[in-house]
């Protein structure tokens, strides 16, 4: 195979790779070997751990296919998991010194489902430490670089997941999303990222960040791949009591390109089109609005006034639950234990202080503060009440619109090592995504052109609970418009305003 053929094979979508495998034009061993070579050659630091058993798994998939015993359409396709998904016998670090050598005795439900479908696990990908961050720059194992411009951040916290898809070192990946951690890195790296409805996919075996907000979701090269991946992982799981018993629809059935946009009622919340949004991103969204209208969608500006409070509610709730979830790391049953301690309490303090990074400590402290006596009513309880109003705002909007359209992030990826005056400025970058988690809704980020520097821009489509089929259909339409060559800032596309 020459280099061009290799590049072609590596850049296949999941759907295409599955098609070639079915026709016998490639093999799982060939694809897996290629991915492993590319992982070894990449400087982007997308992977933390490479699965030593990947080739053996690929050979087993090929053997199944030869004897007509393929487990699914995607049997043998190589993929990767964010390093907060437990896989029995394989290190799961959460990109933290705390879990640097942790080898889980059990496997996450999603990893199990993907293995049952025959996919080949290439390894575990980089993330912000314990998923607390939005740039994958708090990883104990160093930052992930953005494959679209390696001087820049990949986004986060699922930055390794997004970068692996963007640099073609996996045909798809899994991430987790507590406040935008799948959608924002997807936007930053120019790929598709979906956060399903809270409870749509089992979180069993995924290390918890904020339990009332966490949901896992796929990162893909196309919307079709995304629908296919979701159909593999969605569904109820008795081991995750928050998972929903609702039936899983056929997510691929509704995909019909720009046709699917006809008559679609789209609301554009003005709260996410204001001064906090980078000007050229706003222009990109405006271009999409006119393209959607030309495709037959009914697009209208709208207002969800409570969204203004979502960032505050999110940081209070997420930090509180984070601090509570990270209480389990005590250096007793697993994880890092300091040396030279004096007694039990000192062991706990030293172990936690030495093994957690700055951002993790900051959020633990913030969460402990808002939960502590005298502050609980002012912060945590207030945030839970604000949450009720934010949910009601969305409910009203979905009485009028099928989906809501927003930028995924207010900015495009910043330079690695950018010094921000204080963390609150970095937290504000999550303004467009956190409300979705606060309300438990599904949302997808789809690439939509580039900014003035040629960096990817993503748009977010939000739907009511359990409307994954609807937002995938709309996203498929947006993707078709993007591929028709009219994307702002790209060759042949409309000029910047």
């Amino acid at each position, binding site marked *: 195979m020459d280099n061009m053929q290799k590049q072609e094979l590596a850049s296949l979508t999941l759907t295409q790779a599955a098609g070639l495998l079915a026709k016998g034009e490639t093999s799982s061993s060939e694809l897996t070997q290629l991915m492993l070579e590319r992982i070894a050659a990449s400087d982007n630091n997308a992977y933390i751990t490479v699965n030593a058993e990947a080739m053996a798994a690929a050979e087993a998939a090929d053997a199944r296919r030869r004897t007509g015993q393929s487990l699914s359409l995607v049997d043998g396709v190589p993929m990767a998991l964010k390093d907060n998904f437990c896989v029995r016998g394989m290190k799961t670090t959460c990109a933290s010194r705390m879990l640097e050598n942790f080898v889980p005795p059990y496997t996450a439900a999603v990893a199990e489902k993907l293995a049952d479908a025959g996919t080949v696990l290439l390894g575990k990908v980089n993330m912000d430490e314990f998923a607390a961050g939005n740039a994958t720059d708090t990883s104990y194992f160093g930052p992930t670089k953005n494959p679209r411009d390696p001087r820049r951040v990949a986004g986060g916290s699922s930055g390794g997941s997004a970068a692996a898809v963007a640099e073609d070192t996996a045909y798809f990946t899994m991430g987790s999303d507590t406040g935008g951690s799948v959608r924002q890195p997807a936007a930053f790296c120019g790929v598709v990222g979906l956060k399903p409805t809270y409870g749509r996919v089992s979180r069993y075996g995924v290390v918890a960040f904020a339990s009332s907000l966490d949901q896992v979701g796929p990162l893909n090269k196309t919307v079709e791949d995304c629908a296919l991946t979701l159909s593999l992982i969605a569904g109820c799981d008795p081991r995750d009591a*928050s998972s*929903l018993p609702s039936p899983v629809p056929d997510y691929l059935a509704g995909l019909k390109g720009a046709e699917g946009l006809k008559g679609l009622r789209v609301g554009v919340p003005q709260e996410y089109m204001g001064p906090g949004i980078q000007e050229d991103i706003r222009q990109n969204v405006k271009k999409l609005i006119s393209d959607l209208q030309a495709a037959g969608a009914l697009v209208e500006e709208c207002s969800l006034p409570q969204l203004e409070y979502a960032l505050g509610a999110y940081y209070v709730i997420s930090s509180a639950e984070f601090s509570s979830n990270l209480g389990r790391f005590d250096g007793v*049953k697993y994880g890092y234990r300091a040396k030279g301690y004096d*007694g*039990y309490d000192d062991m706990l303090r030293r172990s936690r202080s030495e093994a957690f990074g700055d951002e993790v*400590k*900051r959020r633990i*402290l*913030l969460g402990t503060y808002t939960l502590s006596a005298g502050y609980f009513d002012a912060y945590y309880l207030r945030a839970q009440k604000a949450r009720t109003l934010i949910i009601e705002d969305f409910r009203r909007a979905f009485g009028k619109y099928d989906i809501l359209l927003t930028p995924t992030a207010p900015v495009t990826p910043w330079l690695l090592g950018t010094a921000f005056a204080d963390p609150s400025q970095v937290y504000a970058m999550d303004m467009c995504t956190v409300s979705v988690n606060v309300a438990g809704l599904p949302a997808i980020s789809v690439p939509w052109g580039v900014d003035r520097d040629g960096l990817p821009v993503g748009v977010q489509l939000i739907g009511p609970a359990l409307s994954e089929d609807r937002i995938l259909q709309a996203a498929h339409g947006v993707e078709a418009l993007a591929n028709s060559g009219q994307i702002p800032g790209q060759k042949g596309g409309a000029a910047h305003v």
Partner: protein
Amino acid sequence: MEITKETVLKVAGLAKLNLAEEEAQRLAHEMGKIVGFAGKLAEMDLEGVQPTTHAVKLENVFRADEMQPSYPREEILANGPERDEACFVVPKVVE
């Protein structure tokens, strides 16, 4: 919203984290800024509003109380930083 260094040190004690003086000072400043977001919540009229703990409403989820196999002891102990054949070992906690 102002958060003092003393408050940070007290909270750090609750969270079992050691902080140096200057670290606590820096964190006090940063946490004050972050709590500023939450300060916006004070503007809201929340009289009579019920708090939401989970966005998707699920009634209590029960399962049958049946015995199920657990994990082999050696596997669970394997990740322990200090262990003997049957237990995780920690410093003495009772006199």
